């Protein structure tokens, strides 16, 4: 199957997950919010940790069915991974969301805050890659 068609189907599954979480529990499927809520003082620990386990199990199901791992190796050094992780963690808590919470759920709710956040983090991502790959 063409990767773009698979990507569209994959995106639709992410949407289905967001609809399930809202329809069943009334919660936004924002991964940074769900995972951040596990940190002290953790609330709703049960469904949040179950979501994280399911998230990790997803690629394992894909490997079991297709025989091919969808997980690519990190493309940057370990120190850079650590620095990037710090920025992503701090930024998503400060900005109240990430690619899923603002990008998928927020845009679907036509939230002006999410639209602004998506515009900023996309622009920052584009600019960062441009600087790293084409200037530095």
């Amino acid at each position, binding site marked *: 199957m063409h990767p773009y068609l698979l990507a569209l189907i994959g995106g639709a599954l992410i949407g289905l997950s967001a609809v399930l979480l809202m329809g069943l529990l009334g919660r936004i499927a924002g991964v940074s919010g769900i995972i951040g809520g596990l940190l002290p003082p953790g609330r709703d620990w049960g469904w949040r940790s179950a979501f994280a386990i399911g998230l990790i199990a997803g690629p394992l199901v894909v490997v079991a069915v297709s025989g091919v791992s969808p997980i690519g190796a990190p493309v940057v050094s370990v120190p850079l991974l650590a620095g990037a992780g710090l920025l*992503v963690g*701090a930024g998503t808590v400060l900005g109240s969301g990430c690619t899923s919470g603002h990008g998928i759920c927020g845009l679907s709710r036509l939230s002006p*805050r999410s639209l602004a956040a998506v515009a900023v983090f996309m622009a920052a991502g584009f600019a960062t890659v441009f600087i790293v790959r084409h200037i530095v």
Partner: protein
Amino acid sequence: MRSAFAGLIAGLVFGIGLSLGGMTDPAIVLGFLDIAGAWNPQLAFVMAGGVIVTFIGYRLIARRPAPLWGERFVMPSATRIDAPLLGGALVFGIGWGLAGYCPGPAIASLASARGGVAVFVIAMLAGMAAVKIIRSPSSRQSKPTEVPAAADG
């Protein structure tokens, strides 16, 4: 127990979706962010599929008075486009562009024995905890009665 089952299924479907979409490969994500290079639009298809299904699904759900297994729909309460929102998105976007991981794909990628991504996830949790501690009510004595706004996502 019911809510844990709902979380597990939603997480599983989310993880399969990320995998099929190629989002668990940081090279594909960085390929999308590299507009001046060999641009790979794959991430845009993932976003489109996700927004289309969620847009329709949320509207169908909104006709119901409450979620099936919950008391109420917990929707983001903040409406102002303020400095923390924009500053946080800026910091997040820089980190995303440096390594090619946002929170969902990073956690899903823990399924692989390949090291490295665990370092990213541990650092991400540390970054989250740091901001939570700084923003916690006990560290802000000037506004003890302030209620923190629900997160957008």
